[in-house]
């Protein structure tokens, strides 16, 4: 088997807090991306999704410390700090930030904001860069002639398309999209998701869709990884996660999501996620879990293979250990 396009191994992120305390935002995340796939990274707010992808991009603030490795084409992007990330950032791996559509520069035209990263990274300049910006605007469905306009002249959906065009400026292979449709109406959301799927097909782009919205992932992604308390608790094909989840959190998260045609009762998950500024004893989900047993209080489960491409971090999968 060919090596994965991107391999994140045992990623940790800590943030410094006052009084010599730390917040352990990402706690040993491992994830592999195959070329051309669409992967969903799902979890509730505060579970570390955004922190994890910012760490991959090398865009965390100086108060953060990072450990682990992120292998891209055999290069460890984390090995040499900024120097080892810079050649890859935007060129190989790019990101659409959460709320990016509201962060465009209001006093510059949309096209000039797409040209800027190309010139910075020496991809193209002058007329060639302008031409490429026009092509990108066509690609995301805005039309090249709209490049001379300013962000305030665009609707929310158009600005999000422009933000995607900016991320694609340097021709990356991997696009990390952080909650790209969260503030959008459902019809505009469908248009943007449709665009992202088309980009993966037409450009061979690999997509990581970061969202709290399971149905969005179910609609768009082949595979998904479910995050809880800074780690991945289950990953696998989307179909398997819905029809045969092997972590109670995955199952309960689906059960908490109303479905248009679902008749079964929608159940909230009791309690709230653990604080990440305190050390976690045992399984982080144990206080909220409906199937926890004594081992869950003491030993943190490791992400282990269930089946090909399906992994979960739950003691229930260690059949011999589960009390009858």
């Amino acid at each position, binding site marked *: 088997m060919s090596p994965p396009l991107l391999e994140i191994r045992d990623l940790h992120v800590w943030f410094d807090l006052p009084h010599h305390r730390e917040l352990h935002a990402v706690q040993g995340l491992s994830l592999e991306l195959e070329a051309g796939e669409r992967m969903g990274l799902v979890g509730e707010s505060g579970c570390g999704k955004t922190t994890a992808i910012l760490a991959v991009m090398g865009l965390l603030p100086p108060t953060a410390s990072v450990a682990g490795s992120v292998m891209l084409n055999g290069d460890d992007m984390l090995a040499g700090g900024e120097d080892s990330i810079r050649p890859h950032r935007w060129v190989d791996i790019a990101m659409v930030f959460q709320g990016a559509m509201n962060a465009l520069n209001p006093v510059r035209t949309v096209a000039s904001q797409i040209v800027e990263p190309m010139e910075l990274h020496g991809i193209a300049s002058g007329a060639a860069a302008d031409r490429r910006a026009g092509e990108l605007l066509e690609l995301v469905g805005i039309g090249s002639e709209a490049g001379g306009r300013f962000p305030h002249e665009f609707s929310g959906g158009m600005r999000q398309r422009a933000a995607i065009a900016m991320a694609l400026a340097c021709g990356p292979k991997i696009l990390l999209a952080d909650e790209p449709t969260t503030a959008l109406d459902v019809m505009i959301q469908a248009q943007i998701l449709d665009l992202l799927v088309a980009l993966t097909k037409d450009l061979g782009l690999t997509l990581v869709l970061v969202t709290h919205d399971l*149905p969005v992932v179910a609609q768009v992604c082949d595979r998904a990884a479910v995050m809880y308390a800074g780690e991945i608790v289950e990953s696998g094909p989307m179909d398997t996660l819905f029809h045969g989840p092997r972590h109670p959190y995955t199952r309960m998260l689906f059960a*908490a999501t*109303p479905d*248009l045609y679902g008749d079964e009762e929608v159940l909230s998950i009791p309690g709230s996620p653990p604080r990440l500024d305190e050390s976690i004893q045992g399984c982080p989900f144990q206080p909220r879990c409906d199937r926890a047993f004594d081992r869950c209080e003491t030993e943190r489960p490791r992400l282990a293979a269930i089946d090909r491409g399906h992994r979960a971090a739950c003691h229930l999968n260690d059949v011999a250990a589960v009390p009858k």
Partner: protein
Amino acid sequence: MNGTGVTEVPLLEVRDLVVTYPVRRGLVGALRRRPRRSVHAVEGVSLRVRTGEMLALVGESGCGKTTTAQAIFGMVPTVSGSIAFRGQELTSMSPRAMRLVRRKMQLVYQDPYESLDPRFRVRTTIAEPLRIHRIGGSKQDRARKVADALARAELQPPELYAERYPHELSGGQRQRAAIAASLILGPELLVADEPVSMLDVSVRAGILSLIDDLRKRDDVGVLMITHDLSTAAHFADRIAVMYLGRIVEEGPANDVVRDPRHPYTKALLSVVPKRDPRRRTAPQILVGETPNPIDVPTGCRFHPRCPVAEDRCRTIDPALRPVEADGGGHAAACVLVGGEAPVRTMTGDVAGEG
């Protein structure tokens, strides 16, 4: 629902509600005597909420659903139409009489981070309506009412939560505290404007079930304003779909979701992502975005984006009418629905068209 209880007075009845907002012309516009224009936020909305019933008002942003709610509470002036609470007309009511009625109808806001004053303990916020309406009697009496409201909002034990400040509560607990504040006067109608859209998925169901219980157990009528069709399908008895200031389809939740008749409802339902990847459907994506409500299209306001529009749709503004003779309370505003029926209003010369 149609046909039964014809004589029953609904808890809330809105008829032909029209709300417009003036658009600023600016100094240049005024000097050039450009015509005064207005945003037609709500253009002839009629709806009913019965005791113990939940009606979901669904639509995309800018469709007028929140304006409708604000008009019900007199928070925006209405141009025309009637709003009746238990048969009492609210639009012409004196502020004094309105205060009495307002005790019986309460609004739950979207953002529990903003609707609770961070300087006050939860008990102070919850007791505030009692002070405003000068009811509740002695201190002990009020404390008991606060505890009751907290218990009804399932913040148990109440004495623990009463003493807390908002920052000590999670998002879900804050929304429960906000709901407790709206329950303390014993309302008969609750209008909830996107009550869970700011909350995490794992706690949403709890808040929605709480609202659901209030109507089932305590017979509170609920008007829920939401952009989320899945939530509406799950919890509401009836769904009304709004587009550009109008209700374009209304009916029992199950009928609207499983047998939509208006092309807009059909498209909207098709783009709602489903939990089960095996149930992925080809979304019927409408091009463009909802038009600006300053320039509402002529004829059917949906026709420029409608996949099945015909020539006559450019001139005929269809009225909401039953989808079938027996109806079952399911109605849609589309020329392709039901038999030949009267149109709502006519713009331009309709006679020769179609």
